[in-house]
């Protein structure tokens, strides 16, 4: 025998009972009335919920061929411990992460060979021009950031990225409301109708990129996205000539967490955008299943410049393909105070003058 079916009120969550006088289910706590069928199908819908299934094949990259890495050297920074890869002809350089000199550690060994590389499309001059443009109109920036000699230090670096492709199946429940208002001579009435909305379907993602270098701040790299992968080519060591390359130190299986978060959020957002015509919508439950998930290993071009100011390092980064330029800047408090005073004086003068003019005219 089936146990006594107990329903929960969709309005307040309390246990709900059958009211014989109105022949309906009525919540004893919030007095909301329901049809029996509504509750049954509501219950059924919510019991259908499945947990997320986010499974991946994270094998990416290939083994190096014999002799392929002969011309590549690993340089290490004695100051921050950063390891970078360059070719054997590279002149003495400084660490792209902390500006201290780096030394050759030896031949490049180990690691995986990237599947793809997006070659640098914008050169150093373009990067410098973008930096000047980035600083333009920012009046509170300390002067050191605009120093020409320092700006020459900008470096091109290939940053390792894991690219995740996947199909996603989603089954999402939303709670939505519609509101109707009217009024009579005494009262204004507001009727709020509540609905359970369901959307199920599929969506696919290509090359969701997560950087595989612990030295590169994730937020900085996510800010210069996206890269256009249609311009990517199969990796050849020749592309590294004249540039530095960072070695990945965060594996694909560790990076996939971040990709999962972003894919889940995006799927929910895209599905929610199909729920329209409601006064309010919120996600009640969502179940997302990923399949055919694969990973690739790629190098993306980034122009990088570190600037030290008041014991903090500020990093600029430019997408070496699209030219998107980002970098948080510190505020020069003296400049801020100067501008505050100036604007305040002008503002006060304008208001006072306006008031006096108004007096004259009226």
């Amino acid at each position, binding site marked *: 025998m089936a146990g006594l079916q107990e329903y929960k009120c969709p*309005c307040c969550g309390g246990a709900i009972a059958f009211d014989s006088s109105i022949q309906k289910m009525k919540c004893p706590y919030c007095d*909301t*009335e329901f049809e029996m069928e*509504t509750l049954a199908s509501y219950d059924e819908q919510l019991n259908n919920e499945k947990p997320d299934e986010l499974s991946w094949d994270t094998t990416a990259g290939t083994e190096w061929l014999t002799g392929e890495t002969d011309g590549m050297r690993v340089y290490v920074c004695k100051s921050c411990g950063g390891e970078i890869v360059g070719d054997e002809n590279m002149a003495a350089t400084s660490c792209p992460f902390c500006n201290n000199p780096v030394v050759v550690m030896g031949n490049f060994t180990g690691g995986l060979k990237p599947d793809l590389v997006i070659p640098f499309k914008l050169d150093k001059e373009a990067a410098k021009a973008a930096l000047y443009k980035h600083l333009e*109109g920012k009046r*509170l920036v300390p002067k050191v950031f605009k120093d020409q000699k320092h700006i020459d230090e900008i470096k091109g670096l290939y940053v390792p990225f894991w690219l995740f492709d996947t*199909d996603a199946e989603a089954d999402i429940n939303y709670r939505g409301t519609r509101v109707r208002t009217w*009024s009579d001579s*005494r*009262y*204004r*009435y*507001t*009727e*709020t*109708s*509540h*609905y*359970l*909305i*369901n*959307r*199920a*379907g*599929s*969506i*696919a*993602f290509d090359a*969701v*990129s997560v950087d595989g270098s612990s030295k590169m701040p*994730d*937020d900085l790299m996510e*800010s210069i*996205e*996206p890269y256009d992968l249609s311009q990517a080519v199969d990796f050849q060591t020749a592309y590294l000539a004249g540039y530095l390359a960072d070695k990945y130190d965060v594996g694909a299986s560790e990076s996939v967490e971040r990709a999962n978060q972003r*894919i889940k*959020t*995006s799927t929910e*957002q895209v599905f929610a955008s*199909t729920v329209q015509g409601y006064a309010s919508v919120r996600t009640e439950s969502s179940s997302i299943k990923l399949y055919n998930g694969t990973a690739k290993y790629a190098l993306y071009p980034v122009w990088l410049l570190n600037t030290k100011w008041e014991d903090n390092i500020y990093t600029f980064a430019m997408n070496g393909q699209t030219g998107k330029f*980002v*970098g*948080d800047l510190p*505020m020069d408090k003296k400049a801020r105070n100067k*501008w*505050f*005073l*100036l*604007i*305040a*004086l002008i*503002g*006060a*003068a304008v*208001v*006072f003058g306006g*008031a*006096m003019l108004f*007096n004259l005219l*009226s």
Partner: protein
Amino acid sequence: MKKRFAILATILTFTLVIALPALAAQASGSAESTAVTGIIAQQSGAYVVDNADLLTEQQENTLKSKLASISSRHNCDVVVVTVQSVGSKTPEAFADDFFDYNGYKPDGILLLVSMQDRDWHVSTTGKGISAVNSAALKRIERDVVSELSDARYYNAFDKFGDLCDTFLTCQAQGKPYKESPVSAGKAAIAAIASGLAAGGIGTSSMKRKLKSVHRKTNAGDYVRAGSLNIVSSREMFLFKNVSRVEIQRTSSSSGGGGGTHISSSGVSHGGGGGKF
């Protein structure tokens, strides 16, 4: 001593004999007004009628001469009337009738103060109607009625005289009365406050420009074009609830300033009033 008394008595009698016919004449002249307002203006066309006895003799005289001078200058009677009660009439009807039946000029501004229900009313006639526009009435309410509320009656009436003078002057110059513009002190305070606000907003917007690094929470850039395929799309009605809110009716103690009405004597009046 006896002689002195006799002289005094004679003078008194003489005065009475001369004054009686005049008094009788006035009584018959205002018989109509007695019927309408129940109040007799001691003197036809008096500028101050203080039946509620709110002013001292001296204040009354000063006010009288002030209002007389304003009235003659503008050829428009400016009158102050105080009563204990307006009886069964509305303050508006009482003020209108008082003006119509007491031999005033066809143009005038009358301030009525009734103590029992703490009513004030300004009744305007002729060119007084256009002189006391709604801005003027607001000014009276602000400057005069506040004094009445604080029981400074003489100040209130004195101020009323000054204001009527201003209103009538504005009208004579062909410029309708407007609220006096912003004072320099207020302008300075507003200027400092808005200067500080502008400085704050300006520098904080400059500061916002410094931040360009943000995490991306979604993968919207990587959605494969055209890959979205919704296979099921359902909506289920759950329940509804209705709430109601009583509609607030706005009520104000002050009467309307705009528009005119016809009093019992058929004369068009304007003005407005309220409680103090």
